[in-house]
């Protein structure tokens, strides 16, 4: 198979890991050199992703904005890896993963820049940092479930040590708590992965679907593939399992392979359990209430750059997993549990906001604000408001786009907030909100930057935080007015804790804490990290379309596919009802049958033609949704 993007993407992901070998050769005591080499590597990675993003540049691995490619998986390559288990070395990117990839490279670079104050075991620090970066980049590119899981877990160990060795006073407790929570989540995830694997059978997919899921490279090789995996004859009951995430999505949406019940006869289906297990695994990473308790500890104890990574990138993996894996693979379960998902999101928002309000530690307050802000992401992903009879998916699309935007925006603002907290912590070595005050007078530039970033976090119109929040809240209205009102109310709470914190730290007549002499203006290194974050916060706030151009085709595509699935469920039932009505005109029986067929989870197998139609429409339909979004954006600009 010809894989032009094999080496570019592999090099991108493994460059940081390979660079650790170079670091090992450097003299242990030359801290400056080690840090510079590491920074250089992270800069290269970032520049590479930017080059991939730039329109007009064509080459093996780049992100195309062409109308026919932008919604699809791009730069895909696959190499057979472990044939015994059908595991492939399979990567690619679309509008959902690519912005997160760029964000990862961006935050990784800034966090490395913010690592200069680290003086303990610098070599080990940089090695672990670069290994962590490889894991993060890999998670967003992997399209094979096994590969995804390996990258997901690869991040654990470096993170554990980075918190545990370089962290604050309670670092060991925080590190092991982080480790245990994540490991528990990932063990559940592994169980779900295996459940899906053993219940999948690729042979049921149509030719088009096989090509779309990159099981085979093109239409011509379908026949060869089919003869290699015969569906009849002696090998008829030897299923062809798969770890291919795209194929699993197709199987989840167009076949009933994941609809059988497990554990007990007539109990919940495989996809219900898989969804629950995967969702727990991802939501621990997000993190949402009630599994969020590792986050404040880990954030507070971690050194500043690691807090930036945690807030800026790691939390996004939870959201990414939900949108890439949970929803598309298990649509039925996702539909059934939409309320649970939204409820968890709203509870996190409210709880996180109240908890942030109560904190006395500056960093802890920022950590709880992350819990609150990531609640928007979960809510936005969960608002499955497309229901019969109209199946209007516009609001759900708005919610998902908002959630994705919120992830990027939060990655920028929270990384910035942690960095800015770190800046003053480096100077005065305490973080108690009540013992600050009057920083504006002593560090005017720093305070200006800080206020901008905190306002971005607050969701002030014109800055990046606003767009995601407003889209999510608006979309929630159509799903549930109660949830929408509560989530709108959270905006006030957010304003309260952020403004109150700003007031206590930056305003006021004089500084009340220890080491007042250390409050020096920020250094060029520090502002060169803060300024890019400020620029992104403003650009995304004023011109969000710059990000939506990359993102929303793929997001809409995902939503459309799910709504397609939903429509196939409903019309099947409706059509059945019509027939019966014509024959019997017995309304009660129809209803009963409808209920029965739903409760039994009978799913109709769609004809391939219908599926094809669906895919085409998804990419060509001019949907009214961009208008509403643009309106919101214009409002944001005006505000």
């Amino acid at each position, binding site marked *: 198979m010809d894989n032009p993007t094999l080496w570019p993407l592999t090099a991108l992901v493994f460059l940081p890991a390979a660079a650790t070998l170079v670091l090992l050769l450097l003299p242990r005591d030359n801290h400056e050199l080690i840090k510079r080499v590491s920074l250089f590597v992270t800069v290269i990675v970032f520049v590479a992703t930017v080059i991939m993003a730039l329109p007009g540049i064509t080459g093996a691995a780049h992100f195309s904005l062409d109308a026919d490619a932008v919604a699809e998986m791009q730069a895909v390559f696959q190499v057979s*890896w*472990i*044939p*015994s*288990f059908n595991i492939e070395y399979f990567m690619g990117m679309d509008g959902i993963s690519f912005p997160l990839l760029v964000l990862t490279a961006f935050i990784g670079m800034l966090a490395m820049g913010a690592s200069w104050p680290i003086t303990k075991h610098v070599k*080990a620090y940089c090695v672990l940092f670069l290994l962590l970066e490889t894991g993060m980049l890999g998670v967003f590119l992997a399209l094979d479930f*096994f590969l995804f*899981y*390996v990258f997901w*877990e*690869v991040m*654990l*160990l470096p993170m*554990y*040590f980075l918190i*545990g*060795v370089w962290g604050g006073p309670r*670092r*060991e407790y925080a590190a*092991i708590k982080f*480790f*245990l929570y994540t*490991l*528990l989540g990932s*063990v*559940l995830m*592994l*169980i779900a992965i*295996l*459940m899906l*694997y*053993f219940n999948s059978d690729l042979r049921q997919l149509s030719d088009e679907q096989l090509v779309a899921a990159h099981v085979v490279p093109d239409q011509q090789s379908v026949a060869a593939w089919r003869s290699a995996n015969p569906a009849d004859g002696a090998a008829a009951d*030897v299923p062809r399992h798969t770890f291919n995430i795209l194929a699993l999505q197709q199987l989840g949406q167009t076949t009933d392979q994941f609809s059988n019940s*497990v*554990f007990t006869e007539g109990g919940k289906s495989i996809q219900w359990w898989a969804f629950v297990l995967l969702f727990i695994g991802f939501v621990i990473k997000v993190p949402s209430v009630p599994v969020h308790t590792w986050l404040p500890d880990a954030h507070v104890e971690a050194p500043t750059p690691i807090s930036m990574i945690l807030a800026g990138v790691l939390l996004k993996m939870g959201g990414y997993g939900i949108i890439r894996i949970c929803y598309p693979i298990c649509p039925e379960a996702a539909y059934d549990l939409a309320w649970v998902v939204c409820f968890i999101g709203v509870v996190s928002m409210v709880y996180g906001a109240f908890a942030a309000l109560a904190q006395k530690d500056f960093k802890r307050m920022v950590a709880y604000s992350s819990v609150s802000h990531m609640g928007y992401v979960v809510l936005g992903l969960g608002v499955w408001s497309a229901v019969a009879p109209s199946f209007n998916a516009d609001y759900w699309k708005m919610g998902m786009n908002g959630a994705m935007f919120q992830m990027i925006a939060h990655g920028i603002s929270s990384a910035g907030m942690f960095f800015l907290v770190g800046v003053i912590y480096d100077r005065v070595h305490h973080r108690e909100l009540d013992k600050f005050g009057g920083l504006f007078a002593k560090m005017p530039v720093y305070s200006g930057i800080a206020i901008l970033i905190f306002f971005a976090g607050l969701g002030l119109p014109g800055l990046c935080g606003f767009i995601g929040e407003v889209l999510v809240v608006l979309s929630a209205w159509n799903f549930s007015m109660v949830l929408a009102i509560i989530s709108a109310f959270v905006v006030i709470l957010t304003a309260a804790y952020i403004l109150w914190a700003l007031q206590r730290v930056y305003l006021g007549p004089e500084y009340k804490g220890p080491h007042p002499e250390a409050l020096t203006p920020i250094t060029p290194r520090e502002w060169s990290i803060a300024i890019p974050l400020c620029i992104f916060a403003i650009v995304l706030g004023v011109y969000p379309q710059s990000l939506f151009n990359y993102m929303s085709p793929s997001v809409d595509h995902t939503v459309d596919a799910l709504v397609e699935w939903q429509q196939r469920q409903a019309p099947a039932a409706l059509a059945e009802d019509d027939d019966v009505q014509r024959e019997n005109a017995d309304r009660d029986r129809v209803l009963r049958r409808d209920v029965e067929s739903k409760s039994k989870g009978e799913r109709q197998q769609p004809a391939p033609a219908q599926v094809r139609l669906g895919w085409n429409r998804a990419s060509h339909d001019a949907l009214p949704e961009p208008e509403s979004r643009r309106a919101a954006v214009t409002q944001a600009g005006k505000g």
Partner: protein
Amino acid sequence: MNYEQLVQSVIGDTENSLRKFLPELILCATILLMLLTRLFAITRKILPPWLLATAGAGLAFFLAAPWVHLSGEVSTAREEIFTGMLVHDAFTIYFRAVLLFTTLLFIVLARISGLSDQENGPDFCTLVLGAALGMCLMAEANHLLIVFLAVEMASVPSYTLVGILKTNRKSSEASMKYAVYGAGAAGVMLYGTSLIAGITGSAHLPTIAWRLSEGIGTDYQLVLVLAGLMMMVGLAFKLSAVPFHFWCPDAFEGASAEVAGFLSVASKAAALALLVRLVIGFTSPPAAEPKRFEMKPAMVATASDAASNASTIPVVHTLEVKESDRQADRVAGMRTFLAWVIGVLAAITCTFGNLAAYGQTNIKRLLAYSTIAHAGYMMMPVAAGVAMMTANPVGASEAFAALLLYVLIYVFMNMGAFAIIAFIRNAIGSEEIADYAGMVRSSPGWVVCFSAILFSLVGLPPLAGFMGKLVIFAGLVDAGMYWLLFVGGINTAISLFYYLKVVRVMTFDPEPETRPPLRLRLASIPGLYVLVLTAPVILLIVQWNGLYRWAEAACKTVVGF
């Protein structure tokens, strides 16, 4: 058949068998040679026992040649050798190779760490090879007599190996405990063996399976179950499965780390092989009634002894209607029963081992409980495999293959861990976890290796232990044993605690003042040894398809589809 014919066919069979038995023969020859070289001062000098042992084990491993037999080029059909006492198939080849490889690693380790250089070095090497021979026989057993003999042959040298540190009271105590416990377990197992042989009138595994499937035991079901459980006692002792694990922490604490490593890997691998042999042996009757060795088709009529009488007891004639269906039912019943027994035992063993490990302060005790937990993990695929044998033989063979892959990975992980413990003991004279504090500052390379091995034992990707866990869990999902899967999953999370404790002490804690300085370099012979064992643990993720294929090939002939 007259006497002469019998002798002729025995000779023919033996010649053929000896050829298949070559690696074991080499071990025997090496043992003899070592005993002879002790007699003269000159040979003692020229041929030190460790050199002979290394050469012998190496040659045996080379002749075992799994790379030839498991690649599919050479036919490895199931073949009974020595008149049906042993069986030679791909499974034999795989386990023989793993056991000999472990023995080789162990002898090299004992040489590097100085354990085999003491005055009783020759005894030590003889015992090791003797134990290895017994373990190989365990993996090849096809007859209850051999089962018992092999278990004893592997155990008795192990008792002595545990007590090899003569002046050490703890070591002697451990040896004593191990021996007493082992003797008790062996007695119970022997009783179980005799019950089964008594009921079925044979000790030849396929014959037993055939007769059981014919329903010979229906009137004695309770006795059969009792006999099966008694045999499980003996196996559970070798596996250190709960509740027969009490010897394990004490024996490991008393024994030198090298010996503990050898026992934890080789002894356990052999016990697992035997478990699979017995479980499959009892529950998969051959397609036709097995012929007694000398009863070649032409000579059936003359055979008339007690055993052949037993085979023609009336049961066979009364069950003519749908005999095959009833056979299948009985076999399926036995399989379900065994799957539950092994599954429950695995779950308890795994959970207990992981919980008990948490409170340990001695690294060897901690790893002893860790091996108990891993025995639990490794019994899981056996349960899954047995459960699937009726409905899904392909899945069953994959489940057993998962066990085989795990065993191989386990060799590297545990030998590596115990080797590091042994070398650190040589450096600081302590095996307390607290004395490992702050090692990372003086010996970073070693700490990285040890941490990789410990995290691999947890089963974290990308380390090798993860692949083992993955294939085992895959087998459980395939068998639909979700309850066991959840037990395994939760246990993985629990086990993180205590492995992490060791890593934490090594990396986070300050160095204790009372400890002698500890500087271990990777660029030394012990360092290279550790590196050689750690490298597969770290690098296996790159490509493990080949190893899995071997494991698969090894299991195909066993399940026999």
